[in-house]
């Protein structure tokens, strides 16, 4: 550095401080009280939750920018945290509703004063257009609607401007709860239709980048992959007006940076940190960490029962006893989850899910079982997991790999890039899969329907088909007799624990880190933030 550079930099510093700008620059490290700044790793790739290809993060803006007919009530968990209550339905756009005497249709009365962000009133015509769209558009939207037996546009009827009726094609206890999930949002059909084309009758192109909602927040700006800014919609009538005026969601790819930001107080909420960071922040005491075990969700190790030697029951049981469960809880996820192993008894008595399996870490038992299968020298195999989840999966995968190596089972780890993950699961060629699943509607049969059922969806990475399990799942889904229901659910859980094609590991936490002055967090099944209930003290 010669003299010239030195003088130059000195001059800059002097002038900057002379202009008295240093204090100002430091001052806006804290965010204004009516603005919430959130950092996360992944952002939405669309504003249209029904559209094909919308990613998981799209649920966030969709929940807050759009309304649905119904919502869920709230309850307090034993830990004191506010959570949605899947057993009670609450009004949103529908201020009241009633089932007909046979239970084959439901009539909804819409709020008379509800308006969309552009000021136009919410009418039954909008609801019908939105619901027709949800069942016709294909992809995840159609499938999710089908989970509540909402399948055809003919089921949806406009009675009058503010009355809407749904006809059920069969009795399904999930039909009404299904109306409160993210998919059946009510869109401004006039606005959307104005942007529809011959080749795009549902205006997917326009709705991906623009919103047509009536929700408590409007989209002020959206830079995909960078930043989403929401502002409060002051004309919202579906509940008390939110106390937050503005929400800024910024995409910060590096976990280390996201942690820095919250520790320094530069942001209000930090999402998606590795378990270790959450554990350390929680222990540190400065930052508030809320961890709620995600309902109807599980992290597990699947064994493909059609790929030898996992077609042998003794081999699967051997692996189940070989897993270093406690190590995984301690240094795999730093305690940010509920153990799902080591049940005291092998008999299932309660129809709850997830629940612990009877397996536990016992290398002696594992060795004996392997020998009984004739594989005391071990064998070679591979374990696949989603590279996109590597931060949370890899430590567990490494521990499992090491434990199996002690039995002579040589495991190669395959980190599958996120783009290939669905394909890899679908092909059913991975002998071992370490992954997780979360079912939105909190019923065991719903989880089993998606992941154990013999119709072999992409999530059935065990390639498992058992007719008895399928039969019991069907009974549980449609019966109205509590005794029959309990028998069916306990029945199918018992079978899958006995046959152990899938080894449950733990139920993971949804962890969120907040500044202590952020209040009103509520846990939702979609695992996104509901800004309507939040505020800063």
């Amino acid at each position, binding site marked *: *550095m*010669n003299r010239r*550079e030195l003088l130059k930099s000195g001059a800059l510093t002097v002038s*900057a401080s002379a*202009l008295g*700008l240093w204090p*100002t*620059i430091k001052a*806006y*490290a804290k*965010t*204004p009280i009516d603005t919430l*700044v959130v*950092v996360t790793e992944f952002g939405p*790739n*669309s504003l249209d939750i029904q559209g*094909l*290809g*919308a*990613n998981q993060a799209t649920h966030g803006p969709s929940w807050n920018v759009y309304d649905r007919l119904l919502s869920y009530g709230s309850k307090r968990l034993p830990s004191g945290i506010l959570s949605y209550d899947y057993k009670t339905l609450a009004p949103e756009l529908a201020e009241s509703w009633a089932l007909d005497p046979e239970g084959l249709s439901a009539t909804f009365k819409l709020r008379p004063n509800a308006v969309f962000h552009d000021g136009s009133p919410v009418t039954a015509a909008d609801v019908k257009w939105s619901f027709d769209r949800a069942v016709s558009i*294909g*992809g*995840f*939207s*159609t*499938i*999710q609607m089908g989970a509540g037996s909402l399948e055809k546009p003919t089921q949806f009827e406009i009675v009058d401007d503010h009355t809407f009726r749904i006809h059920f094609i069969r009795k399904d206890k999930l039909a009404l709860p299904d109306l409160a999930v993210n998919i059946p949002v009510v869109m401004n059909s006039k606005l959307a239709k104005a942007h529809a084309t011959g080749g795009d009758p549902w205006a997917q192109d326009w709705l*991906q*980048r623009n919103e047509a909602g009536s929700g408590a927040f409007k989209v002020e700006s959206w*830079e*995909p*992959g*960078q*930043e989403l800014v929401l502002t409060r919609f002051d004309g919202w009538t579906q509940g008390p007006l939110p106390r937050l005026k503005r929400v*800024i969601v*910024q*995409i*910060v*790819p*590096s976990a*280390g*940076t996201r942690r*820095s*930001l919250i*520790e*320094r107080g*530069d*942001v209000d909420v930090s999402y998606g940190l590795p378990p270790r960071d959450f554990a350390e922040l929680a222990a540190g005491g400065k930052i508030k960490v809320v961890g709620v075990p995600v309902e109807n969700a599980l992290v597990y190790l699947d064994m493909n029962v059609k790929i030898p030697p996992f077609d042998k029951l003794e081999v699967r049981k051997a692996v189940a006893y070989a897993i270093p469960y406690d190590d995984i809880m301690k240094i795999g996820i730093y305690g940010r989850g509920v153990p799902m192993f080591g049940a005291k008894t092998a008999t299932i008595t309660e129809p709850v899910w997830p629940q612990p399996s009877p397996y536990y870490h016992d290398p002696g038992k594992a060795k004996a079982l392997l020998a009984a299968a004739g594989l005391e020298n071990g064998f070679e195999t591979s374990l696949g997991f989603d590279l*996109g989840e590597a931060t949370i999966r890899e430590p567990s995968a490494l521990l499992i790999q090491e434990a199996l190596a002690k039995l002579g089972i040589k495991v190669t780890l395959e980190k599958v*890039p*996120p*783009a*290939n993950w*669905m*394909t890899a699961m*679908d092909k059913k060629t991975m002998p071992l899969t370490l992954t997780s699943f979360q079912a939105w509607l909190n019923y065991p049969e719903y989880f089993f329907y998606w992941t154990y059922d013999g119709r072999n*969806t*992409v999530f059935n990475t065990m390639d498992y088909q058992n007719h008895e399990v399928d039969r019991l799942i069907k009974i549980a889904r449609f019966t109205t007799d509590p005794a029959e229901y309990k028998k069916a659910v306990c029945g199918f859980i018992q079978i899958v624990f006995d046959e152990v094609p899938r080894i449950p590991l733990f139920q993971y936490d949804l962890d969120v880190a907040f500044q202590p002055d952020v209040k009103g967090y509520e846990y939702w099944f979609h695992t996104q933030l509901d800004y309507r209930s939040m505020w800063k003290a």
Partner: protein
Amino acid sequence: MGRVIASRLVGVLGVLASVIVVTFFLTRALPADPAVYFAGMGGTQAAIEAMRAKLGLDHSLIVQFGFYLRDLAHGNLGMSLTTGHSVLSDLMARLPASFELTIVALLLALAVGLPAGIGAALRPDSWFDHLVRVLGTAGVAMPTFFTGLLLLHVFYFDLAWAPPPLGRIGAFIAPPPHVTGFYLIDSLLAGQVQTLIDAVRHIALPALTLALFAVAPIARATRAAMLDALASDFIRTARVIPLSSFRTIVVYAFGNALLPVLTSVGMVFSFLLGANVLVEKVFAWPGIGTYAINALIAADYAPVQGFVLVMAVLYIGLNLAVDLAVIATDPRAAAT
């Protein structure tokens, strides 16, 4: 001269054509199936096939390539599935961010590298020379993402001098009115001093990280070129005739060292543009590198193709410009 330019252009277009072909088939060779990925959670066969048709992937590769070329001829780089915008508008929006970062980094590197290289050439084998070489080499030895994180930790976390790494500008400051897309220039033009200072504070660390990487090649090239120039006949002549030694160095030697240095700088610039990626990830810088990587991981073909095309055009254009500058000043070079 005109013939030289023409022949260069033909060669350049040929390379560009090959790049387009290779990129297209390389993205198609990725094992990910975008139809499955974008069909997402609703992965039934019907949904996947619908997605495939929507993406235009149900045609044969040759036909798809034909569509791609036709679109390209109309200046249409396709649509990005992850952002929902046209690739061209995405790239146009993000290029200024990458450019600004690279240019500032380059200027920083030049500010340190040029004097260091000149000084080292003036006193070869001295402690200064060795120091320059050692420091320069050290800067190149560490991975850029590592250096970035280290600087971030020290200057943001420990010392709180640097602002939170949330991009080019603070969360509560509006970007300056768009003229060039370079925040530093635009805020200066609009007279928004606070915005300018904020933009400077945000670009400081990422630019420093990149600059550390660029200093070594620049210092090394300057040193080598200066040594060559200083050893040349006419400099020795100038020394015999007593011109002041400072003038000798700056005016004559450096002037002749300029061309090889310029070539090096050109190479460093294009290398930096590509190496941006890792730095962008650490500092959440909204540049084209992150855009391309996200698209690659998501099997979103169009942005990857568009990114490679743009970078190739830039690189080739830059090389061509330097080449022509060299030829213009030294006709002998046209012979190669």
